[in-house]
């Protein structure tokens, strides 16, 4: 009798286990995120949680982290570590302008025609674990700021905290509001549900359940260099600039670093290595500071016949706000 009761209990227990629905993102492997990037997210979550009206740093960090997998790794595999240098490669519509392609329409037309015209001299608008994009959140943010998770997490935290605070509703509705700027979460009901599932999987019993990937740091491979800004009449003092090179990027690169030449109407080209820095000036007519981001593609890195420079007016959508020039000496590399 006791054995029969025990057997029945075991069968019942097994039935219970089998019948519990398992979310697609709740895999055996724990979610992974870069080691210092996770520290960065936790730091800024702690700084801004009270703005959101939350008391738990880990809960707010989970809200922040949720968007990163759908944006640059995988919505269904959170054990893939989002790459801080991750480049958006799906930006193949030219509705807002051709300027992501070198020389604008010239570069775009040659790309569509399958010609190799400085093809990898390409401006990627969506960058980093939060995929900040100049078309929306990301306007005014430099390449280094959107890559470096210490900087990027600060903007993500403030943005999400303000949204979370302003929105009325349930915790789930407030989380959805926090993710408003990230279409990977809010484009459809299905993407939103995926993000709610990711959140549930990485925030359990009031604890953040994310494993640190020690191979990924805050810069994700972005290297500091020394540069000087040079015009026909002026050479600036030297300063720190940053070099992008996909070959040294860390984190999951399965999608964004593949098919580097891109395909017409498919993936956009992956940028060749380039140097990036920002300049600013005071605009007296509006009484505000205006910013520009410079990306230099040196011929020694790209292998093309000439070096090229793109300059983005940072208060505009890069799709229409980048201008291209041929440069040989605008940047001194030290």
């Amino acid at each position, binding site marked *: 009798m006791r054995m029969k009761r025990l057997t029945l209990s075991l069968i019942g227990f097994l039935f219970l286990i089998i019948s519990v629905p398992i979310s697609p993102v709740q895999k055996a492997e724990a979610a992974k995120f870069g080691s210092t990037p996770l520290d960065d997210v936790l730091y800024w979550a702690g700084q801004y949680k009270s703005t959101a009206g939350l008391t738990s740093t880990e809960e707010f960090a989970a809200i922040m982290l949720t968007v990163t997998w759908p944006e640059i790794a995988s919505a269904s595999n959170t054990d893939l570590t989002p790459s801080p240098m991750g480049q958006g*490669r799906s930006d193949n519509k030219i509705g807002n302008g051709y300027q992501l392609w070198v020389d604008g329409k010239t570069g775009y037309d040659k790309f569509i025609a399958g010609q190799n015209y400085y093809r990898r001299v390409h401006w990627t608008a969506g960058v980093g674990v939060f995929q900040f994009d100049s078309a929306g959140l990301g306007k005014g943010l430099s390449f280094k700021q959107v890559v470096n998770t210490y900087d990027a997490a600060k903007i993500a935290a403030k943005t999400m905290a303000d949204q979370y605070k302003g929105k009325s509703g349930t915790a789930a509705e407030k989380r959805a509001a926090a993710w408003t700027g990230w279409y990977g979460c809010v484009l459809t009901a299905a993407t939103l549900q995926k993000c709610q599932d990711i959140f549930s999987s990485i925030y359990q019993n009031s604890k953040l359940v994310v494993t640190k990937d020690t191979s990924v740091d805050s810069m994700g491979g972005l290297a500091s260099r020394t540069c000087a800004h040079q015009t026909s009449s002026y050479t600036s003092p030297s300063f720190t600039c940053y070099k992008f090179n996909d070959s040294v990027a860390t984190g999951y690169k399965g999608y964004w670093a593949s098919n580097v030449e891109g395909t017409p109407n498919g993936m956009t080209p992956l940028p060749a290595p380039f140097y990036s820095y920002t300049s600013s000036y005071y605009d007296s007519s509006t009484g505000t500071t205006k910013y520009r981001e410079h990306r230099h593609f040196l011929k020694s890195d790209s292998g093309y016949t000439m070096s090229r420079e793109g300059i983005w007016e940072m208060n505009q959508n890069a799709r229409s706000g980048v201008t291209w020039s041929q440069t040989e000496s605008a940047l001194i590399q030290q």
Partner: protein
Amino acid sequence: MKNKKMSLLYLVLAVFILIPALAFASPESNKSNGKVKTKLPKGVEVWEQYGVDKEFFKADVELDAPPVEQQSNKSGKKYYDLEGFSGYYATDEVAGDRLVIVEESLNISQSGLWEAKGLIRNEYTSPVKAGHIEADLINKNGEIIKKVKGESMVELIRPGEPVPFVIQTDIDASLVANVEWSIKSTDKKQDFNRQGTAMVLHELPYGEETYNGELRSDAPFPYKMSVQLRNLSKKDWNSAYLVVAWIDSEGKVFNTIKVDSDKTYHIYADGVAMFDEIVVDDPSIAPYLSQYEYMTWVVGK
């Protein structure tokens, strides 16, 4: 002797009070090319748009002067990010005594029913509540065939600021040979606050099944724009509205839309909220919106 002392006193008063006062007033009253210099609304810095500290946005190189090539669109117009306004056609040199039509922005229908879309600009040196636009439609014989009127879509128009208007009629456009405009400022006696800024978060093109690689679920895929509001003022707002005007490649107003703030948000001081999503499915308009530049206006209450 007493009179002499009084004269001296008046002289001292003139030197120390009147002359400085005139000098202080001179930036407003100096005229060049028949225009009066005025002060535009405060510009919005990038750190204000995100609500973070200024130091975060320190550039690697700080230039003493603007680069030779100023930022501008194809036609050379300057782009402004001001409190409550982002776009073109603002000016700090105004007529001083009127509201004007911004001729370059006028888009008058050439066929079908007569319709005018465009911008008016406040060229007074102080804010006005709104603009009341009247147009006399005149035929080829010089006769007025219809008097039509409209209101500016934005309230509390600051000096130098352009705002959109639309006038629709039941008159055949082919009958109209000329238009005579008159614009007056109106007082609606309501409290408005323009210390806000709009940030477009997403713009989904018309007819596109995917958006940056993600499948959409809103077939037949209208044009969509979602816009975030940041209240830059020191007070919570009860509500707000957003006006968007798209301008075509010639700088003419192509389309305008006005939406309210999302009522599920509380608009805190230095906080954010969303506006109701803009959805356009008219196939004669929607396909162009993602290709044209837009201007935005924010009005809070």
